[in-house]
């Protein structure tokens, strides 16, 4: 009896906070008919916003994948002073407001910043242009691969790697034949999380991009832009497209989770 009551409460809470709002967005997006929803999403500025988001993600995800794997190896296998500090800095983007990240980049590259003379003063646009948006996105999505790979590496242990090395394998061979196969599902899981975070980034990019319509507006910025312009069909339509991507991410996570834990 008590168990049924708890189950009902929990499922009711989840339905009220997660499922019902999501379902309603789908309805709102198509309120004016599928044609209006489609013309809102296929607007050139919206298409450009999606292209920009995908482009930034395509740069940030490989960078953070490489960093995440090397960083996890250093955390688990390395012995060096300052490891605790490294751990703390890798986790920091998870706990930090993205607006703070954006402001930091703004102060670094903006007029009077340490790197202003190196780039902006010579006409190399960093702020209000894609380079700073990529940097902001790399910052906020930094921890995911490393955090997934670290436990997988701990689980694997060092014995197999040492055995391979004893048998004369080079570090590269050891990594490719022993380490990589053992961590690959954790790695893929981390890449999925990183991708989702990159696609959904808002706060940091909002600060550094300048939000120039058709130029530095990403998909999430476009949602807010449409919402504030009272174009609700557009806002809900783009939201629905982003939500569809989120559902794909959820499916990928669900399929990967048992393999990651195996």
């Amino acid at each position, binding site marked *: 009896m008590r168990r049924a009551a708890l189950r009902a409460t929990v499922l009711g809470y*989840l339905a009220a906070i997660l499922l019902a709002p999501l379902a*309603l967005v789908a309805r*709102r997006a198509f309120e004016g008919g599928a044609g209006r929803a489609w013309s809102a999403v296929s607007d050139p500025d919206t298409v450009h916003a999606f292209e920009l988001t995908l482009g930034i993600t395509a740069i940030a995800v490989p960078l953070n994948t490489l960093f995440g794997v*090397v960083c996890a190896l*250093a955390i688990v296998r390395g012995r060096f002073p300052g490891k605790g500090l490294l751990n703390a800095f890798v986790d920091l983007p998870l706990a930090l*407001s993205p*607006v703070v990240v954006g402001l930091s980049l703004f*102060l670094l590259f903006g007029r009077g910043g340490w790197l202003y003379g190196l780039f902006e003063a010579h006409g190399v646009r960093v702020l209000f242009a894609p380079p700073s948006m990529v940097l902001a996105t790399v910052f906020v999505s930094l921890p995911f691969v490393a955090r997934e790979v670290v436990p997988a590496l701990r689980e694997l242990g060092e014995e197999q790697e040492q055995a391979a090395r004893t048998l004369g394998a080079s570090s590269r061979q050891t990594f490719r034949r022993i380490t990589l196969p053992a961590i690959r599902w954790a790695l893929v899981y981390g890449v999925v999380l990183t991708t989702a975070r990159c696609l959904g980034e808002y706060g940091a990019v*909002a600060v550094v991009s300048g939000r120039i319509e058709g130029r530095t507006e990403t998909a999430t910025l476009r949602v807010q832009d449409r919402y504030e312009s009272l174009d609700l069909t557009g806002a809900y339509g783009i939201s629905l497209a982003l939500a569809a991507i*989120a559902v794909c991410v959820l499916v990928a996570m669900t399929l990967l989770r048992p393999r990651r834990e195996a």
Partner: protein
Amino acid sequence: MAARASLPGTAARPSAGGALALGFVGAFLGAVVCLPLAALVRSSAGGGFLAAVSSSESVAALELTLAAAAAAALVNAVAGTAIAWVLVRDAFPGKAAVNALIDLPFALPTVVAGLVLLALYGPRSPVGVDVAFTRAGIVLALLFVTLPFVVRTVQPVLHELDREPEDAARSLGASEPTIFCRIVLPAILPGVLSGVALAFARAVGEIGALVIVSGNLPYRTEVASVVVFNRIQAGDRAGAAAVAVVLLAISFAVLLAVGAVRRLATRHERA
């Protein structure tokens, strides 16, 4: 020959490859994370820090942010534990789907989350609940974006938990609440605490969902992140940096707390 000579102490001796890897990690982290944050701290130290942080707008926003984040974290402590319990100990059709749904807030862009919540609990609410531009709305949005943290830290611990002590207590006549408080809770508490801490940090820094839901009314529904954002837009860099440094300090404090809880938990396990 060189490789063979280093065999016995391969792990202890820093290899050329290891040094290279460490250099890469250090350089990447330094360029992407440390340098921008150093620029932020430097800018905030330019004088006027105290005035910018103690201005009535900053104080109101920081108070609101901390209170709303604390409220969301507390609700999560209870709701997250209950959800994890149902997902591990209960069995019902569709459980796998519910389990997958938990991660939705991680996968969904937060701006979309804000819009989604406003669709159901906003001005045109079909259920007659309108929390748009209110503090209740802020807490609701924070509850949405922080939902997975406690669930995902408690779930694995609960899954691994040995059931025998509970059965023993039950056969000795202990009531269910007693069993939960005396046997289950001590085991899952480190998980609950680190989940709550991460949820709190995430809630303090949230902006995407809040710019849509809260309406950003100064002194009423304007959170700290939004104050930082608005000051940047207004060209007040020192004022923005001051509040941002406070947020940075809160993040560091939470991470230190999570680290301490983890160390305490592993020491407890080993003992």
